[in-house]
């Protein structure tokens, strides 16, 4: 079964339109209360010198986040790059729903699994396209 960081990652990667489309085929989301947001802000992206050395600030990025509470008090969080407040709120509601064991399997199957499969397929396609450009350079005899 998928764990919490995994479903949050799938929801963060999915576009607003993709989440909307999968939600259209699922039961309506339950009522919830907004605890924080949805709101848009900035996070600082960071890198490491040389890829593996000391940390430096690379650039800022826009981020949308939302925290909601279900009627039973379960808190859900949605965080994602970009400015889609709708997607952040949907992700927060789904995060709260998926924490309840009773409904987890159903919501995973209805929403998260299809998104995850589409993401896996796109990643695999990119990997195959990348593999098709693998190059082997041959060194010619040195001229000197």
């Amino acid at each position, binding site marked *: 079964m998928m764990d919490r*960081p995994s479903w*949050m*990652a799938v929801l*963060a*990667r999915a576009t607003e339109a993709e989440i909307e489309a999968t939600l259209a085929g699922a039961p309506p989301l339950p009522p919830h209360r907004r605890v924080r947001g949805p*709101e*848009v*802000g*900035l*996070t*600082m*992206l*960071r*890198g*490491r*010198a*040389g*890829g*593996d*050395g*000391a*940390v*430096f*600030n*690379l*650039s*800022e*990025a*826009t*981020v949308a*986040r939302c*925290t909601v509470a279900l009627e039973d008090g379960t*808190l859900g*969080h949605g*965080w*994602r*790059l*970009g*400015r889609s407040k709708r997607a952040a709120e949907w992700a927060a509601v789904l995060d709260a729903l998926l924490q309840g064991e009773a409904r987890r399997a159903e919501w995973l199957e209805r929403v998260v699994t299809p998104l995850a499969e589409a993401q896996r397929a796109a*990643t*695999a*396609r*990119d*990997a*195959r*396209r*990348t*593999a*098709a*450009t*693998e*190059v*082997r*350079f041959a*060194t010619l005899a040195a001229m000197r």
Partner: protein
Amino acid sequence: MYVAVKGGDAAIAAAHAWLAEQRRGDTALPELSAAQVAEQLGLAVDRVMAEGSCHDRELAALAIKQARGDLIEAAFLLRAYRNTLTRFPAAEPVDTGAMRVRRRISATYKDMPGGQVLGPTFDYTHRLLDFALLAEGEAPTPPEESEATGAPMPRVSDILAQEGLMRREPPGDDAPPPDLTRDPLPFPAPRALRLQSLARGDEGFLLGLGYSTQRGYGNAHPFVAELRMGEVEVLITPPELGFPISLGEITVTECQMVNQFAGQADTPPQFTRGYGLSLGHSERKAMAMALVDRALMARDLGEEVTAPAQDHEFVLLHADNVEATGFVEHLKLPHHVDFQSELEKLRSIRARWEAARNGVAEAAE
């Protein structure tokens, strides 16, 4: 000193209305959408995000549209927007070793673990204009595919470092790195601020400086140990959760530029490297950044500082095109009062000069 002026409102409004009309161009042609810019002028979007120092493809595309394709103006717009947003916690450093690689090449190794993949590149094209693109044609044929091995692609610099032939990066501490947007820039500048400044610096400026190091201003003999481009995951640890979660993926380009040896009494001679990391698919920027990063290490490595690219103040205070354009372009604003005082000064100097010359002429008579 700049003395403010007022007035000109009607003329300014008329100028801006005309600008809007010029931006739209011939209305017989379909209007360009920001989504089209993001999809079809993606490398311009990457550059504006990097120099505007804000990752948001849609906003960068909008800025390009609004700026009529003026990419420095677009970076300026993005920076200004960014100032309106609140700050959330910072993300974890991206792990470029775990990149979902779409392109990875090395000029130093023919064979390396994971292989070399060209990805979607301009390299090896003939740079001939493709007139087929003038016609609105059909969609291009889908790219070829072959079976992916999934073999890991370690950084080439790690391979050299394992052999002890590459100077290792000093590991950092856990303290948050200094931030150019909040902290003053001291000189000599610490590496973290140098890298941040270069990452948002103007590609053209850094390209020229990087080129100058190749041409002899700084004694560089660089090799691209590795250039890689692809997707990295952005992780953040929100305080309310206490564990890292993914915010999604971003595309970055990384360049490891190997350079000549350094060694001291206690360390054997070894390769040194400059590092470039930039948002999007931006190889020229990442390479130029790596060249200049290496040049800026001169002082740390005990090399003589002789060239512009090695001079921290010269490079870091002039790399930001938003600052540079602000200061250069402010010269267009009315400077009537300043100029009036210059005029008066010149008139008085001239009067004295003429009096002196007349005095000389009278004395000669």
